[in-house]
């Protein structure tokens, strides 16, 4: 059907394209990619406004589809949510008692440790693109180095910790989510202050995290895990203390050395929209 010249030309082009792909892969793999990385960031800078505009234009459609999905799933979750509400109501009563007692003790000790998120210089940002492969849990936000963002800064939404800034261009940044294989967050439970490292459960699983205990301690289903913050001033943590991460959903072999704890993140990492980046944290690049 084709003459030998056409077939040869086709094979040469195919070979060239494969070779180009391999050269690009080798040049950009690991680190910041050097010159190739700079060119990539430059092109990304050009694409950012287009993607951001498209994301804004498509938001109503996305919200409409999400509304249908949420309506279907909400009915199934009603019983669980009711039970959780009852439990939370009891916990609120207990925590109110504890809070008033705590305030009294703080006043007595003349301590002022009531640092809120406001002290960490939060910068609001909007998610406008998301990785299309299950192997990378990353999103792109519409704030970059010109807004004061640097690599390593923590990102959270209204529910809890989302991830950290991993790459920045002038007008946008890539956020690596806490479910990405490169992520690891030092955390502790609120009850019992059991320490551990929050790691991703598996690739492409935005609804589950693993809490790997660094010491002993008993953990129960329903316990809440927050960031541990800086333990030694020599090694400052990227994450301020007390940022909510997730709730314990399962504990295998509780109390033993091999116990395996799974968390459900507070933040819905499948549908991120508005987030906040904490720009004044001790561990981030300046």
């Amino acid at each position, binding site marked *: 059907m084709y003459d030998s010249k056409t077939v040869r030309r086709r094979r040469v082009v195919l070979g060239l394209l494969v070779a180009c792909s391999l050269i690009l892969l080798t040049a950009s793999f690991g680190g910041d990619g050097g010159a190739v990385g700079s060119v990539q960031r430059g092109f990304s800078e050009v694409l950012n406004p287009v993607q951001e505009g*498209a*994301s804004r234009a498509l938001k109503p459609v996305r919200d409409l589809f999400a509304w249908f999905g949420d309506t279907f799933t909400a009915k199934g979750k009603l019983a669980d949510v009711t039970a959780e509400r009852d439990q939370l109501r009891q916990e609120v009563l207990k925590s109110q008692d504890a809070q008033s007692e705590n305030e009294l003790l703080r006043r007595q000790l003349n301590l002022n440790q009531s640092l809120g998120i406001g002290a960490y210089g939060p910068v609001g940002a909007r998610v406008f693109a998301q990785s*299309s492969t299950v192997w990378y849990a990353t999103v*792109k936000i519409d704030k970059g180095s010109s807004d004061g963002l640097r690599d390593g800064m923590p990102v959270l939404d209204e529910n809890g910790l989302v991830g950290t800034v991993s790459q920045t261009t002038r007008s946008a940044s890539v956020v690596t989510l806490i479910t990405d294989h490169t992520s690891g967050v030092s955390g502790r439970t609120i009850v019992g202050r059991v320490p551990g490292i929050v790691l991703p459960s598996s690739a*492409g699983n935005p609804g589950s995290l693993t809490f790997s205990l660094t010491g002993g301690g008993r953990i129960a289903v329903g316990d809440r895990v927050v960031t541990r913050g800086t333990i030694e001033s020599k090694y400052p943590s990227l994450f301020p203390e007390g940022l909510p991460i997730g709730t314990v959903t399962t504990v295998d072999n509780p109390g033993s050395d091999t116990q395996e704890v799974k968390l459900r993140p507070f933040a819905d990492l499948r549908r*991120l929209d508005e987030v906040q980046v904490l720009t004044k944290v001790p561990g981030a690049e300046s």
Partner: protein
Amino acid sequence: MKGLVARIVVFGIVIGIVQVTFVSQFPVAGGTADLAPLAVMSIGLLCGGLVGASFGFGLGLFLDVSLLQTLGVTSLILVGIGYFAGRLRDGIADTESSLVPLLAGAAATVTMSVSYSIIQFLLDVSAPVSGVLLRQLLATLILNTLLALPVYAIARRWLSRSLPQQPRGRRRQSSSAALSPLQQGLRTQGSRRTSIS
């Protein structure tokens, strides 16, 4: 020819932007659709292996650049998908059948998922793997199979005016070209008899 290239470039940019700003952020049944292999498969089926491979390279590069991912990974896979979709077009008799883009779309999705996973392991990406990943890949496969026909139809409609030969015309031409002059003469006589009777 310039018109065709311009239309293919526009198609690629639109698919890339819609993928990262809409489709990736819209999970269905635990997975998200991936329009990239479907678009490359469509271009390969409509325009041939050379154009399919080039389009795959360009779209892969666009996706990797826009998400600041490791360059070349997506391009490498999509080049193969585009090339083999074009070869499929050359090898099959009936490109008009709706089964062709459907099955080719499913095959392209499986190729994309499996190849991407293998490359990630080769690059020493130490992500733990569980049944959830397989479930997600299965959900993506089902979604992509459902979307294969619409994406192919959109691509064909968008490129129809610029394509030098429509698939149907190409099929007829190629089938008659395969006949020897004697066979063509017999065929002409047969058609005359049919018209007389």
